């Protein structure tokens, strides 16, 4: 089986030759290649080269077409500060209190901000891996984009102080994510990941997720499936147990399980949804290769019978992760085959 076949079978709970392993390597690929992050997140060809090198070096089962969570916000007029060794961050938000939401228009991925560069990266990754290994196209989810447009605190207060304006903002963020995700799929991405850490129960109550975010996620994932996504992937970090039960309604094929969630409890809640996780991200920095390999093997064994599991980090692999620790994670899936 190649990586694409392996992931496809695993998502469908069919037999695969081994457990897929997909450490969530984003800009760690730049650090690994000795490239400044400020360049990695602005140059699609460079991003593709670094991702290809990371996949080749570690032997993992997917590549990520993802720059950072600010791409969409910047394309809409937010101003960013770029850093050599860290992700960019918004220094001036596009949506200030005096700006009506309807003044924003959905960005055209072919020409807005850095979006065309990520489309380029996606096309290059697909050309490299063809249908051998999945390319994961990543967009910011509605709640995360709302925060990136208005500011984290302002967006949350807006939800309570001006619920109508907040819903307008969420609707706008959903339309933006939809168009961007469709463009990534058209550029060659196999899988559509919605990266929405701000939708975590650590940030908003589960009822907030159910009433305000679930309908928008459902709309997004349905559109991505229609656009040809092999699978949809929802990345929400933190203790997500209280919202996992809504994932099937949203149309999630792969559910991220962070390190502080119990994977067996997640399986009880999501008996027919593929899970990915859930090794503590900080262990890739402070832990040893032995610890990672042992934990990886434990997880592989835990899900060996039932299937539907991708070995991964609970959240993004930290930028400064030790390469030997990522190699140890990958080695864990080979010991069972």
């Amino acid at each position, binding site marked *: 089986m190649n990586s694409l076949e392996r992931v496809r079978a695993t998502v469908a709970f069919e037999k695969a030759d081994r457990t897929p392993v997909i450490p969530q390597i984003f800009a760690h690929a730049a650090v690994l290649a000795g490239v400044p992050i400020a360049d990695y997140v602005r140059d699609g060809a460079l991003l593709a080269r670094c991702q290809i090198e990371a996949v080749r070096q570690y032997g993992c089962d997917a590549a990520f077409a993802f720059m950072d969570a600010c791409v969409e916000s910047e394309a809409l007029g937010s101003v960013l500060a770029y850093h050599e060794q*860290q992700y960019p961050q918004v220094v001036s938000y596009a949506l200030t209190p005096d700006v009506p939401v309807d003044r924003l228009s959905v960005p055209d991925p072919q020409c807005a901000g850095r979006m065309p560069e990520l489309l380029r990266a996606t096309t290059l990754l697909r050309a490299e891996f063809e249908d051998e290994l999945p390319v994961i196209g990543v967009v910011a989810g509605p709640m995360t984009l709302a925060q990136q447009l208005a500011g984290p605190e302002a967006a949350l207060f807006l939800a309570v102080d001006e619920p109508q304006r907040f819903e307008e903002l969420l609707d706008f963020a959903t339309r933006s994510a939809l168009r961007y995700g469709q463009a990534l799929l058209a550029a060659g991405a196999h899988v559509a990941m919605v990266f929405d850490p701000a939708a975590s129960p*650590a940030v908003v109550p*589960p009822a907030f997720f159910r009433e305000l975010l679930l309908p928008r996620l459902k709309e997004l994932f349905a559109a991505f499936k229609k656009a040809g996504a092999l699978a949809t992937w929802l990345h929400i970090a933190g203790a997500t147990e209280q919202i996992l039960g809504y994932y099937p309604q949203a149309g999630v094929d792969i559910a991220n399980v962070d390190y502080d969630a119990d994977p067996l409890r997640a399986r009880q809640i999501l008996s027919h949804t593929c899970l990915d996780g859930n090794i503590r991200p*900080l262990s890739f920095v402070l832990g040893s290769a032995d610890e990672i390999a042992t934990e990886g093997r434990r997880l592989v064994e835990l899900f060996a019978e039932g299937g539907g599991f991708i070995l991964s980090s609970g959240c993004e692999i930290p930028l400064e992760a030790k390469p030997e620790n990522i190699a140890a994670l990958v080695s864990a899936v080979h010991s069972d085959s």
Partner: protein
Amino acid sequence: MPSERQSATTENLPERQSAVAENPFHQLRCVRAARMVRNSGMQRLIATLTDGDSAAALAEAQRLRDAGVPVERIVNEGLETAMEQVDAKCTVEAFNLLEIMLVGRAVTVVANELYLRGIPPDRSKATVVIATPEGDVHDLGKNIVTMVLTGKGYRVVDLGRNCPVSALSEAVEREQAAAVLLSGLLTTVIPQVRRVRPALAERGLFDVKILAGGAALRQASTEELDVDYVAQTAFDGARLLESCLAERPA
């Protein structure tokens, strides 16, 4: 969008509210709080604070002060009781920033009205210094801890985000702070966190407690960070602070 959607107020959280109401720990706190409250004005203040209604809470606090209720009583029986009630319902499993932010905003508005520039040193439980270390520009978590601690009667000196260790140790000495609180979303700030204790030691500040929290730092152990405590949530941090300051020699 579908019409069944509700507006995003805390009133639309029936499951969570009933779970909280059934929590025996919460009920005990409420009984205790009720005993402490001696008039309906204070009860109204607590209710408006826990509802996160800043404008109503401010009006209640002003009304109490105008009626001659001492500021210390408004803080002790109003603000602190409200924070205790929220604390009781926020476990590690059931903690979300939105609800805390609403209460925190209301408490901060009232505290700033009562003291103009935050709680002064002579009236506070203790002074603490808080910051997001250099290399990290995320400050949502730090701001929430600041609100929680202000509501609990601490004087919080907020050094903002991307704060160098030297500025931290200087502020601790200048403000005679009892503790330093560090919040980090990114794992890359860990080397900065590890430098805090030696920097304090250079100034002879050996008794100052160091607490860490935030999405990245809460994954680590005290040994890995060289700190005294690692908090899982803002209230966890406040409780740890309370207990470690209680252990200090008088």
